[in-house]
């Protein structure tokens, strides 16, 4: 039996799981507040634009987006298997590709800011 390369996909899953546990609820709360009409100051265009223009924020944002999406993708892959979808390789390819593509897109949008 050979040792598996699963750590490649599991490492970012565990990191993303931890990151989203700490960060995602409060971020959702911010957009929910905005949606309910109580827009946090940061979400005003000028401030948001200036904030996202900083290179450190860009790097951090791409990291957060990638890790969040990757851990979600990994969980979805396993849940599909649990629920009886046996085409694991196909499912894995699709969900990981979405995570990577969206992260690349986020990086590209940030470069335009």
């Amino acid at each position: 039996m050979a040792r598996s390369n699963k750590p490649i996909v599991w490492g970012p899953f565990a990191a993303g799981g931890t990151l989203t546990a700490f960060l995602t609820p409060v971020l959702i709360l911010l957009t929910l507040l905005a949606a309910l009409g109580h827009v946090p100051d940061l979400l005003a265009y000028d401030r948001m634009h200036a904030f996202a223009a900083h290179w450190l924020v860009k790097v951090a944002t791409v990291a957060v987006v990638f890790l969040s999406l990757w851990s979600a993708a990994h969980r979805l892959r396993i849940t599909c298997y649990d629920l009886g979808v046996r085409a694991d390789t196909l499912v894995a390819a699709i969900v990981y590709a979405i995570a990577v593509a969206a992260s690349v897109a986020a990086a590209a949008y940030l470069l335009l800011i």
Partner: protein
Amino acid sequence: MSRKPYVRALRWEWLTRHPRYPRYLLRELSCLFIGGWTLMMVWGLARLAQGPEAWAAFLDALRSPASIVLQALALAFAVYHSVTWFNLTPKALPLQLGEDFVADRVISGAHFAVWGLLSLAVLLLAGAF
């Protein structure tokens, strides 16, 4: 005596055996909401890059009833993910100081405290109040 072992095939039956299994599924399904909301934010970045009108339209779109319901659900699932994640952390990362292991609830508790403080800090820095 002839052997003829009987194999019971497993599909979904396990989900109904005990409440812990649907609870596990619920925990895993939090990924749809966390992932979905993150994709929405990537869309937000695109709108931000397009200028003030696009950004205003994005914030407007957030206000639709469907979006509010989805975000409320996403928040509930995200909190559920955090709670389950921190409750399980001591199992993955036990800490032995000297002879004894630090109690699970101390490790979890520390994570919950950091989570709370961090969330508060983000709310303050973002000018939510």
